[in-house]
C-alpha cells in the first residue's frame, strides 16, 4: 500500500531532488536521487537516475572511441614515417598533431565528470573503482 506523504515531506523530498539534479548538472554522475514514496516524485527520481546513467554511458563511449582513434593515429603515423625517412612533411605532421590534440581534449572533457564506480586513467585504461575480482 502506498503511504501518502504530508506536504512537508513532499516539500523536503522535492528540495532533495532539486539538490541532486543540480549536482548531476554540474557533472557529478556518481550521485543518485534518493528513494521517494510519492508516485510522481518517485517517477521524477527514477528518470533523473536513468538520465545520469545514460549520460555516463555516452561519455565513456566517447572517451573510449577517442582512445581507439588515438591508437589508430599512432599506428598510421608510424606507418607514414617509414615512407618519409627525412621526416613527415609539415602539413601531415601538423594534421596528425591537431587530431591527436582534439582526441585528447575530448578525453579531458569526459574526465572532468565524476563517474559512478569507473576510473578513466590517462594511460588509456578504464577500470572499476570497486576493483573487480583481482
Amino acid at each position: 500500500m502506498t503511504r501518502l506523504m504530508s506536504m512537508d515531506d513532499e516539500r523536503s523530498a522535492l528540495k532533495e531532488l532539486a539538490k541532486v539534479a543540480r549536482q548531476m548538472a554540474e557533472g557529478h554522475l556518481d550521485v543518485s536521487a534518493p528513494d521517494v514514496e510519492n508516485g510522481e516524485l518517485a517517477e521524477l527520481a527514477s528518470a533523473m537516475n536513468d538520465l545520469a546513467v545514460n549520460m555516463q554511458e555516452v561519455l565513456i563511449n566517447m572517451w573510449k572511441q577517442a582512445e581507439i582513434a588515438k591508437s589508430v593515429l599512432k599506428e598510421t603515423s608510424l606507418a607514414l614515417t617509414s615512407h618519409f625517412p627525412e621526416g613527415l612533411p609539415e602539413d601531415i605532421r601538423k594534421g596528425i598533431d591537431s587530431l591527436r590534440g582534439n582526441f585528447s581534449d575530448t578525453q579531458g572533457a569526459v574526465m572532468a565528470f565524476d563517474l559512478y564506480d569507473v576510473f578513466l586513467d590517462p594511460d588509456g585504461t578504464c577500470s572499476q573503482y570497486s576493483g573487480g575480482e583481482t
Partner: protein
Amino acid sequence: MKGMFMGKRVLVVDDSSIMRKVISKALRENGHAVLGEAKNGKEAVALYEALKPDAVTMDITMREMDGLAAARKILESDPGAQIIFVSNLEEAKYSRDAQRIGAKGYVSKQRTQDFLSLLEAL
C-alpha cells in the same frame, strides 16, 4: 511455430536504458528473443531464476549489485548458466575475471556485434 525457433532466449542486464535498448534491438534483429531486461545485479539474479533464459548479456558497473557479483550468484545456483559480459571496462583485465567466474565470454561495448558471434557459438 515454437519448434522452429533457433535463436537464443536472452536476459539483457545493463543499468543504462539506452544500452539495454541497443543490445535488445541487435538481439531481435539477429533472430534471438529478449525474455527480460534487468537494470542491476539484484534484478538480474531474480529474473534469471524466474525466466530461466538460455543466455545472459551482463554489464559490470551497476548500482545495487554489480555484474560480477550477479554472475557469481547465478552460476552458484545454475553452474550451466551461459553468461556473456558486455562492458566498457578494460578487456585485458576483466576478461580474465569473467573467465575465472565461469562466464562464456567478455566483449567490449564498442564492438556490439561481437556478443552476437559469441552467443551464436554457445
